């Protein structure tokens, strides 16, 4: 539907002249005697509404239905006309509700029957109505601003519904001519104005209303084009409920509405709470909700014209048999299906349309709407004489609004698809389903009120967060160690954050210390042995893999903030061994590299490299590389060098002889060497003494390092 069709702007012009105070001559009994009351009381005389009351309540009902079904973009401007025009509201969205209109109408009050009829006229209202149609609505304004140079695409059409008591057909013609002239004039004005828009199309709906029992002085006339801009139709309607019925028909026409009657609604009887009777409730909604019925009605008709091929092949064409009788009536009847309790189901829904009950205050209506407003959904079934039941619609409320959902009941073109387990990645069985579920819950969305402090669009923030949370996210269990460890959770859950608090850092540090502790205690790690033969990597190798992975995770976030950087520093300082061993290892390694370039030492470094490179080069982790790197770790692990912490003294044991076997040695030196070696097996050597030059150790070495070299090679400084 076009946004700026005639239905975008509706102007009500209701006559407020003295004769509208006349009674509609339809009596309402309001003093209904309740049973069990003392006999002999004469009920109060019935009262009757005035023409004005009938007009106002019918137009309010028109607005009620319209606002229920189109709370936005369908606007009403309400004008009453007597000696002048009184505009009761504006086109702004805030003014578009029943309460506002009711309050404004109360302020106007009923027409004064004693006012001078000579100075009162509906013409004032009609002129003002045309003026109102030229006024731009906020939606039109928005669309024009957005389209810039194409602003002329924004249409300005509208409808004037005028309820009056006309004197004759010629009086009606006079009113039409007046509207036409006024449009002509105002369009000229609007052409030279930025604030006004020319009226492209105007539908005038003149409703002549008169007391019941009188003869109408005005004849009905269907819609007629008076000019290229103006069409007009005349309805001559008796007041009272006839007028209300007319406006109900009109609101359906004007807003393309259709009616659905829900039948078989079980409802507790007021008097007998344990029995229930079945009730019907009629709802109005946009007619799109019946699109299947309308079209199948066409089908039923076209079917008759269908021709069939020769008798031997008729089988193909006998298709009328199981099709439903598709005659489209005034209302479509659908059967209530008592809802099941599990409401968490995603139906295939092709449309959802707001509803409005025809008889909003009746008990069946309010029972149904309250039931729905309390959060229950009701499936609706097409009544059929035979065959399987077809659920075609669903009633459901969302935040206090009830929608009629259209459910697809035809065959799916997606039936029998290949299962996801047959496709790419379908054979993999150890996806981190639960972890990703947790991830999804953390990345759920929530609405933010529009004027939000920060300038960033909330949805962009959501994307940002997803980016951060997935920088390092292995998809399968056998690809990761750290995410299989409960001990890592405190760090992993906060490191992805945009900013860390001091407490977060503390938690990260605690996590790292805890891991160091685990390593010292030689706790087993949940390393996958999938794809490796035998028992998998040794314990120390496992820790190396774990530390590498943890480093990868932390490195993926170091650019978030300085505090993230601090976590990395802590990690680098803590990972692996007490520093003296590091040092020694390093020294030993250097020598080894120099001397024989053994594969072993090379490999010690290698696995680290792909990680870091991918970090530095791309800033983000390339998934494939990651996989590669990980595969590598697992594969080459059995050949990796002996980690120092397992038999630290053995390494020490082997080194000194190499170092000292250079020159001739005295017996003393031989002896003391031996003693030293033996002793050193019993305790760890002090760092100071180990690194000492001529038995003098330099104190506070790290101060220099901190100041001098920001990033020590692989962070293996002496700081802990």
């Amino acid at each position: 539907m076009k946004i700026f069709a005639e239905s975008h702007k509706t102007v009500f012009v209701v006559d407020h002249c003295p004769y509208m105070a006349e009674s509609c001559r339809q009596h309402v009994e309001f003093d209904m005697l309740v049973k069990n009351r003392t006999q002999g009381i004469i009920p109060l005389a019935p009262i009757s509404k005035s023409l004005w009351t009938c007009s106002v309540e019918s137009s309010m009902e028109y607005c009620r239905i319209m606002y229920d079904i189109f709370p936005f973009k369908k606007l009403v401007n309400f004008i009453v006309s007597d000696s002048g025009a009184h505009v009761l509201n504006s086109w702004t969205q805030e003014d578009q509700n029943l309460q506002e209109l009711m309050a404004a109408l109360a302020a106007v009050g009923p027409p004064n029957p004693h006012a001078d009829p000579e100075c009162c006229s509906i013409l004032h209202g009609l002129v003002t109505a045309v003026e109102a149609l030229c006024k731009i609505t906020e939606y039109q304004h928005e669309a024009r601003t957005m389209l810039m140079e194409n602003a002329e695409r924004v249409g300005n059409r509208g409808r004037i519904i005028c309820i009056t008591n006309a004197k004759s057909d010629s009086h009606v013609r006079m009113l039409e001519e007046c509207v036409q002239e006024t449009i002509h004039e105002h369009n000229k004005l609007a052409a030279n104005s930025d604030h006004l828009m020319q009226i492209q199309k105007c539908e005038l709906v003149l409703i002549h209303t008169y007391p019941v029992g009188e003869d109408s002085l005005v004849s009905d006339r269907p819609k007629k084009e008076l000019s290229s801009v103006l069409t007009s139709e005349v309805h001559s309607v008796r007041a009272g409920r006839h007028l209300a019925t007319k406006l109900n028909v009109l609101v359906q026409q004007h807003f393309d509405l259709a009616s659905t009657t829900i039948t078989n609604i079980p409802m507790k009887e007021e008097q007998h709470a344990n029995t229930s009777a079945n009730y019907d409730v009629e709802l109005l909604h946009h007619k799109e909700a019946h699109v299947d019925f309308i079209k199948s009605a066409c089908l039923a008709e076209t079917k008759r014209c269908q021709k069939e091929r020769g008798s031997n092949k008729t089988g193909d064409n006998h298709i009328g048999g199981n099709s439903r009788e598709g005659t489209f009536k005034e209302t479509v009847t659908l059967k209530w299906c008592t809802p099941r309790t599990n409401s968490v189901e995603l139906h295939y829904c092709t449309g959802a349309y707001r509803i409005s009950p025809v008889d909003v205050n009746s008990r069946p209506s309010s029972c149904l709407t309250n039931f729905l407003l309390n959060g229950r959904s009701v499936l609706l079934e097409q009544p059929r004489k035979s065959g399987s039941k077809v659920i075609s619609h669903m009633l459901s409320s969302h935040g206090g609004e009830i929608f009629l959902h259209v459910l697809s009941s035809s065959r799916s073109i997606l039936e029998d698809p290949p299962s996801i387990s047959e496709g790419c990645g379908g054979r993999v069985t150890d996806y981190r389903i639960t972890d990703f579920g947790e991830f999804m819950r953390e990345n759920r969305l929530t609405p933010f009120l529009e004027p939000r402090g920060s300038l960033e669009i909330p949805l962009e923030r959501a994307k940002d967060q997803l980016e951060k949370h997935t920088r390092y996210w292995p998809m399968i269990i056998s690809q990761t160690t750290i995410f299989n460890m409960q001990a890592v959770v405190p760090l992993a859950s906060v490191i992805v954050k945009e900013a860390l608090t001091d407490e977060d850092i503390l938690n990260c540090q605690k996590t790292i210390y805890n891991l160091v502790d685990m390593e010292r205690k030689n706790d087993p790690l949940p390393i996958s042995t999938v794809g490796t033969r035998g028992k998998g990597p040794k314990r120390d190798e496992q820790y190396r893999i774990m530390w590498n992975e943890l480093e990868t995770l932390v490195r993926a976030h170091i650019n978030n903030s300085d505090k993230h950087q601090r976590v990395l520093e802590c990690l680098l300082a803590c990972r692996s061994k007490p520093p003296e061993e590091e040092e020694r290892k390093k020294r030993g390694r250097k020598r080894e590299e120099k001397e024989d370039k053994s594969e072993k030492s090379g490999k010690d470094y290698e696995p680290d490299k792909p990680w870091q490179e991918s970090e530095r080069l791309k800033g983000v982790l390339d998934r494939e590389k990651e996989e590669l790197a990980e595969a590598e770790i697992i594969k080459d692990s059995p050949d990796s060098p002996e980690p120092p912490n397992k038999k630290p003294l053995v390494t020490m044991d082997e080194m000194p002889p190499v170092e000292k076997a250079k020159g001739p040695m005295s017996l003393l030196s031989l002896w003391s060497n031996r003693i030293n070696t033996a002793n050193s097996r019993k305790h760890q050597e002090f760092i100071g003494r180990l690194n000492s030059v001529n038995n003098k150790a330099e104190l506070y070495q790290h101060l220099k390092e901190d100041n001098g070299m920001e990033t020590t090679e692989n962070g293996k400084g002496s700081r802990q």
Partner: protein
Amino acid sequence: MPTVVVMDVSLSMTRPVSVEGSEEYQRKHLAIHGLTMLFEHMATNYKLEFTALVVFSSLWELMVPFTRDYNTLQEALSNMDDYDKTCLEAALLGVCNIVQQEWGAAIPCQVVLVTDGCLGIGRGSLRHSLATHNQRSENNRFPLPFPFPSKLYVMCMANLEELQSSDSLDCLERLIDLNNGEGQIFTIDGPLCLKNVQSMFGKLIDLAYTPFHAVLKCGHLTSDVQVFPRPEPFIIDEEIDPTPKAINTDLEIVGFIDIADISSPPVLSRHLVLPIALNKEGDELGPGITDDTEDENSANQIAGKIPNFCVLLHGSLKVEGMVAIVQLGPEWYGMLYSQADSKKKSNLMMSLFEPGPEPLPWLGKMAQLGPISDAKENPYGEDDNKSPFPLQPKNKRSYAQNVTVWIKPSGLQTDVQKILRNARKLPEKTQTFYKELNRLRKAALAFGFLDLLKGVADMLERECTLLPDTAHPDAAFQLTHAAQQLKVASTGTSEYTAYDHNITPLQTDFSGSSAERM
């Protein structure tokens, strides 16, 4: 989008085509050649498409009902007989019925009409149908536009010059126009020969049967996917924004929502999201799109063993009962979820919402959805026991706000009786009594129905006289007070008719009143 191939088997299709070489071809053979090519393409690259084959002359026949078995379709091509004259209208009517019978009126279909451009003579010819188009009644409607969303592709076994020499081209163009412009006419470029027929069908394939490949992204987690059926471009508003919008080939997940919160939203269309493995040349090896040759089987097996984000996502969505919100383009969103076809088989499915900033009122504006970590406190609660959805609209609907409607007398009577019922239970029901009284007063003032106020005032005064001896003295006071207040309102004098004014209970002092009731 299911396809109906509508093949002309009238005699004119047997006209010979002069081709150099020994064999003699008819136009029919060219058509079969083209269709064979189309079916082969679909069998390889568009396997999930349902296709039906209809042949027609003066009558029509459904040769092959909707199927994914392209062998059957191929076989049917070689079993076609030649019949009499062309009668297109009947065939199109047949297509209408077949499609609606199978798929209903909502599923878009592609109709591939294969003809030689001889559109029949006399009654039932297209010329005749078009000439009488304006004189038809509702029950004898021309089958176009199709009652379902459709594309009509006309494959002419003739070249442009030939069609232009008669008025065939005009007629066919009118046909497309009648289908609201949805469709296209293809003609053979140059002489009629197998090669040119191939290139014509090649164009159709490019236009309508190329698989839609995209990259599904969730931050750094990505997967190459095929989206089936192809998402079609969508026109938001013909007047304001007439250009069709197509979806991005980057499908970016922006966040997740519980199924209960998204709550069966209306969607434009549904699509399977099938992970594919792209090899270096850019060809895909994936499900449902490759031949079952051994080579590809082994390639499939390898692909099956490489972890894929789609499978992970699908698994978690299924377990958690959630959907992923995915951005399809500027102000266009959709959702990904797990769809079970049967107990064993389930799949990752994508539904497209209507384009626009706010496709679902109960979620609000999509751009205003943000991560829960930005909220002051978790809107889902610490124990995951609440939800920020659905959003409440600013104004309540009439059925949720106790509006007053007196169009039917019963509406008015109910409201009056409510007052009366409460009046008889004064002073216990003082609050409800005045609440109902004020509701009636407001409505009567708005509707200018002052007689009602007078009437109800009279009624309350009468009630006052009917009070039993056992009644609390306050009851009489309140009734009199209420009646008097209604009376002044019914005078219409402005100071008593303020809409916002409420009649308040009379302040009485019967100390410890209700307790001492006799």
